[in-house]
Structures are given as structure tokens and as C-alpha cells.
């Protein structure tokens, strides 16, 4: 048991780490296939399996809130209702047009959703039967009930009905069956007309958060805050068309200064000096701030991050860092 819990994960981590480290330096086809197999198959299978647990967890979280009538349980109720609605909408037609002839698709998204519901229902039911504390057991039981009903309705009522309808009228693309989610399906209608606007609304709130954060950061209470305020204003003005119009030093003045300097240090004046120099405006200052001090700081941070990533990789590969496995020592 100790071997399975402590040693085996470390051995797997070490072997996987070494294999993929070496893989980076091996350009052969076998090496590429190995990477492809891992990223395209294993990772997706792992994610798929974990996603069921994730959905169960989310449902349990909201269900518990509803049953205990915690603060904001109404939102949880809405979340579960919308969750169920989206699953049901996946069963509805991509396009309710009826084409005569042809065979029925063997696997539809509706069937897939029904299968997923049944699977979640079965897992919840098993979890309910295995026991646990009262409150959680109750929520698992309710989850099992809801999902088994949803899955059963999808798989044993809607699908056969649709199939019967199909057989009756000899159509291949009946209402409730579609190989893919079509742009004019109910699911996509919900997605385009409910989810996307709500998502965009949340994103647009960012502008107000930026304003309030900037107000806090730009209060010139110290030298750093003052420098931030000035450079921030310069960059903001420099990134809009106004920045190009705000000329601080005209080109003629710059040329005369540079010519005077070259005369002072006894260097020849380049013949194309007037064409190489340009007006010093806010945009050029903003460009310098972004490309010089800002880039230098970012690269410094990035170098530290990369070295740290190598170090943490080594700690994990050699089993020195084991917290992520669920055990420190």
C-alpha cells in the first residue's frame, strides 16, 4: 500500500518526466507519435473522466445550497434549471426539416447527452448506496434521481419516439436527432442569445474594474506611484491618435541639436540626418517606455520564471516535491 501511495507515483512522475524531456530533443516520427498519443488520447480521456466528477461536484454544490437554503440559493436553483435546459436543448433538432429516404444516424448528440446523464445518474446512485453523511447522501440521491430521469427520458422516450417517427415517415433527419449541433438548433439559440451576451457583459465589466484599479494605483503617494502615474498617462495618450499630434520637440530642433553635438565631438554629420530623425512626440515616448524599461523588466521576470520551472520540474521528477500527490512528506 505504501508502495502504491508513495513510491509508484514518484516512479511514474520520474519516468514520464524523463521520457518527455528526451522526446523534446528527438525529432523522429516515433517521438512525435508518442507526444501525439499522450496529448490527443490520454489527456483527453483523463479530462473526460474528470469532467464527470466535475459535473457531479457542481450539481452537488448547488443542490446542497438549495436544500440547506443557504444565502443565494436562488442562484443555485437557476444554475441547475439552466443546466438541465441546456442538456435538454441538445436533444432538440439541429434543423427540424424532414428529408425522405436514407438511414437514421446511429449516434446523435442527443443520445450522447442521454448516455452522459445516465452515467452521472448511475455514479450518483452508487455513491448514494455506498453511504456517507446524511446531508451529502441526500443530495447525491437527488442528483441520481434527476439524472436517471433525464437520461431515461432522453434514451428511452425521446429517442425511440423520434426513431418511431422516423420509421413511420421514412425520414432520415427527424426532429430530435442530429449528428452535430447545427447553427440553427435550439442549443445554439440558447448559446448565441443567452450565453454569449451574458459572457460579453461580464467581460465588459472589466473596463470599470480597470478604472477603479487605476484610480487606486495612480494616487501619487510615493515616488513609485508618481512614476507609474506619469508613465501610465504617457502610454495611454501615446496609444491613441492624439499622441502622434502632440509633438514635444520638432524634428528641426532635434537635427540642430544633434548637428551641434557632432561638431562638438568632431564627428562628421551624416548627410541623411534630416531623414533619419523624426519629431519627438508622445507616441515615440510611449513606444520607448513599452519597448525598453517595460520589456527589460518583463524579461527579467520571465528568466526567473523559466529557471523556477526547471527547478520545480526537477523537484517533482525526483520526488522531492510531493504535495501535488496529496502528501507533503
Amino acid at each position, binding site marked *: 500500500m505504501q508502495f502504491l501511495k508513495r513510491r509508484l507515483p514518484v516512479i511514474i512522475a520520474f519516468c514520464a518526466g524523463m521520457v518527455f524531456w528526451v522526446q523534446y530533443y528527438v525529432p523522429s516520427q516515433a517521438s512525435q507519435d508518442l507526444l501525439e498519443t499522450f496529448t490527443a488520447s490520454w489527456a483527453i480521456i483523463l479530462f473526460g473522466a474528470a469532467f464527470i466528477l466535475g459535473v457531479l461536484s457542481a450539481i452537488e454544490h448547488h443542490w446542497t445550497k438549495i436544500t440547506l437554503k443557504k444565502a443565494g440559493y436562488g442562484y443555485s436553483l437557476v444554475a441547475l434549471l439552466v443546466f438541465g435546459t441546456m442538456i435538454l436543448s441538445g436533444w432538440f433538432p439541429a434543423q427540424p426539416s424532414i428529408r425522405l429516404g436514407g438511414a437514421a444516424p446511429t449516434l446523435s448528440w442527443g443520445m450522447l447527452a442521454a448516455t452522459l446523464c445516465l452515467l452521472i445518474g448511475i455514479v450518483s446512485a452508487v455513491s448514494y448506496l455506498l453511504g456517507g453523511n446524511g446531508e451529502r447522501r441526500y443530495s447525491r440521491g437527488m442528483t441520481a434521481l434527476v439524472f436517471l430521469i433525464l437520461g431515461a427520458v432522453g434514451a428511452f422516450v425521446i429517442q425511440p419516439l423520434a426513431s418511431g417517427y422516423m420509421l413511420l415517415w421514412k425520414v432520415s433527419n427527424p426532429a430530435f436527432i442530429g449528428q452535430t449541433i447545427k447553427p440553427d438548433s435550439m442549443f445554439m439559440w440558447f448559446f448565441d442569445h443567452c450565453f454569449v451576451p451574458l459572457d460579453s457583459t461580464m467581460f465588459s465589466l472589466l473596463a470599470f474594474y480597470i478604472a477603479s484599479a487605476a484610480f487606486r494605483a495612480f494616487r501619487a503617494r510615493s515616488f513609485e506611484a508618481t512614476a507609474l502615474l506619469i508613465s501610465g498617462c504617457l502610454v495611454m495618450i501615446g496609444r491613441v491618435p492624439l499622441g502622434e499630434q502632440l509633438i514635444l520637440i520638432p524634428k528641426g530642433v532635434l537635427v540642430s541639436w544633434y548637428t551641434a553635438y557632432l561638431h562638438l565631438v568632431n564627428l562628421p554629420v551624416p548627410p541623411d540626418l534630416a531623414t533619419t530623425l523624426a519629431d519627438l512626440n508622445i507616441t515615440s515616448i510611449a513606444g520607448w517606455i513599452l519597448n525598453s524599461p517595460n520589456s527589460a523588466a518583463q524579461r527579467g521576470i520571465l528568466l526567473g520564471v523559466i529557471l523556477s520551472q526547471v527547478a520545480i520540474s526537477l523537484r517533482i521528477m525526483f520526488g522531492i516535491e510531493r504535495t501535488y*500527490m496529496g*502528501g507533503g512528506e
Partner: protein
Amino acid sequence: MTRVAFPMLCCLLLALPLGALAQEPAAGAGAAAPAAATPPPAAAEQPASGAPPAAPAAPDAVTGATPPGTHQVVPQPSNTLLMDRPSDDGTALLIIFNLIGTETTRIGAGVLLDGTWYRCTLRPGLLATLPTKADLPGYFGWRPPNPEAKVLTIDRYTKTNAAGEPESVPFEKDHEYTVRLVVVEGEQFEGFELGTTRTKEQWFNLAGANSLILSVLFAVVIMSFIYAARRNPNLFIRRIQGLEAVDEAIGRATEMGKPVLHINGLDPLSTLSTIAAVNILGRIARRVANYESDLLVPCFDPVVMTVSQEVVKNAYLEAGRPDAYREDKIFFLTDQQFSYVASVCGIMMREKPAANFLLGYFYAEALMLAETGSSTGAIQIAGTDALAQLPFFVTTCDYTLIGEELYAASAYLSREPMLLGSLKGQDVGKAFVMLIIVLGTVFSTVGMLVAQPGAMTGFDWDWITHLLSPLM
């Protein structure tokens, strides 16, 4: 009559040799290197055979066969070379050539397979946009001979499949290909056969040799410091304010009877910053268990949720408080970015956690989470290596772990000598990089200064830059 006829005769006699002179070069050129009359706009994309005689350009653009009696205007390539692409999986060839063309000169290629020419699947490449040998140090080194030579990579050809549709077929490894370079200039084009070569699969990417050596060197340094820490566990590590405040934040939450909120970022567990965040979660969970406080971990990724549950469970177990562990406190919310933000902000507003830990990789949601947390009056400790989000965290959070501090946090909080040893090794690596940066800057500057006409040559002053630059 004579007065008119004589000058006309003279003009005619003079005009004859001039006309002959004017025709001679054209005839000669046509015989030497005939070119097609009407090539297509993208000659390299035409089918290899079957085009009608009225448009002979299509097959000829690939095969290079040219009808006789046409004018020679296509620039001629020189120093042509066909070779296997180095350090690859054996599915590509390189064509190297020198060519002085115009802005409109285009390049294509064809391969001969079973007696039939097929065009290589290329975008109608302008000569000017092709890389030179000097642009590809991964293949030819930093100072290759003939650095101005153009390099064309070919790895696919177009073939008509059984359904009569064009199909792009990749080159096979360990297969011989006869290749022709096609130069298109305006309405003219010409093919130049380059010979035959074999694609070879390589088992080591030579272009990555510098990074391999440096990573091995760095790994050795870190491992030696880790094992040195076993003998001398009293290592000095500089104080990190954000991590010193962890206890204070959890203690405050305990006193107020409010939960501690931990967010692992939005990246999956395959990202190192998420692993670092989960590691920190383990340390925080142990302290929360010791203080008998409450911990909330809303997750964005179901895999991260599963691992977090296990990590927190073990932390509670190690703290001797397995009874206090509640699995439903580490839960999955959604994998949609702004839905997640809405949900977490809702939790912040309703539950009013006294301490928020925002650790891992964040995107646009960083500021929304941090601002909402700030408005609830919670102590906020953030840590990320997302450079674009760092300013937002610095602005809105009480403490921010910048870049590498996020990775050091787990070791710092654990105070385990071996983990701290790796931090020391990291510092040595950073010192080495700083030294290299300074040396590289000096050498590069000196290289620029001495690169004047008549100055000393033959020494690559920029060698440090070359040593550390990515080759591909």
C-alpha cells in the same frame, strides 16, 4: 524616281542587318533555355499533367519542360543544392540556391515519382520572402558559407486522388525524391532539375544541443544544492513578504470566523504554475486545519478539482484533523471563463472570505476577481507568472508573488531543507544567467564597435548571443 528610290533602297539595306541583329539574341536564348509562354499566376500550384495545349504553362511550371521558340527572361539560379532537412523526422527536403530576381519573382518546386512530375504543395512563394541560410542557424550554423543563399523547404506534393480531387501527400521518410526548382518571372517560368536525394529520419535535434547542455548543467547544479542541503539544513533564504503574511491572513480569517478562499488559476494541471498553486494549497490547507478555520476552493478545471480534493484531504490528515475535512468545499464551478468569474465573485460577496489566495495562471479575469475581493475587505495574496496580469494584482492585492516567487512558495512555506536547497540552486542559475547577459552585452557591443571597415575580423564577438539564442 531615282532620287526617291535610292534613299529607300539604302534604308532597306541598312534595316536588314539591324533586324537580323535584333532577332538573333531571342532565337539564341530560346534555343538555350526555352521557357513557357503563359504561366499561371501561381505556377507552382498547377496540376502536373493533363493541361490543354492552349495553356501549356500548367504542366510546364512543375516539370520545367518549356516549349521551343520562346524568349528567355527567367533569372537563372546558381549554386543549387538539394539536401535532406537536418534534425527532422525525415519528411522534408531543402532546396538551396542563389538567385537574383525581382520583387515579383516566384519560386515553386516539383517532384518526380514513378515517372510523373507532381507539384510540391507550397504557397506561391515570392523569392523575396524566402529565408536565407543566415536566417536558419539551426540548419546551417551561425556563420554558414554563402549566407545569402535562399532556402526552400518542401515536404508535400499534390496528387489527384481516386475521386479526382487534389490531395496533399506528405513526403515519406527514407524515400528518394527527384526534385525540380521552378522559377517564375512575370509571364515566364522555367524548371531546373536538381537531382535526387533521400529523406532521412534523425534521432537527435542538433539545433537543441545548446539548450540540452545548459539544462543538464542547470539540473546538476540544482540537484547538488538539494543534496548539499541534507548535510547543512541551515540555508539562508531571503524573506518573501507575501508568504510571511500567509499565517497572518489565515489567523485573521480564524478570528473573524470567515472562510479562506483559494483559487488555483484558470490553467489545467499540465501547467507548472497550476502545479505550484496546488502545492501551495497543500501548505495553506495544513495551516487552515491547524487553525480550525474553513477553506473554500472553487475550481475551474475538473482535473485540478480532483487533485485539490486529494491534496487538501491529506493536508487535513497530516494536521491530525481528518474529521474537519469536507470534500464539498473543494468544488467544480464551470470551465467558462466569465461564468467562473461571476460565480467566484458571487461567493466572495456572499461568504465574505477574510483571506483570498489567488495563485496560478490568470487571464482577463484576474482584475475582476482581485477587485471584488478587495471590495469585501479581505487580505489578498496573489501570485502568478502571467506577466500581463501582474500589474493588476500588484494594484489590488495586499501581497503579490511575482513570477518565480510563486514557484518558490511551496518550498518556502514547508521549510524543508531539500526543497530550500533547490531554491539556492535556482539562485546560482540566475547568477549564471546574469553573468552571461552582462558578458553577452559587452561582447555584442564590442563586436559592433570593431565591425568597422579595416577593423579586426575573424573572431565571432557575438558568440555568447549565438550560444544562447534559440536556433529554430
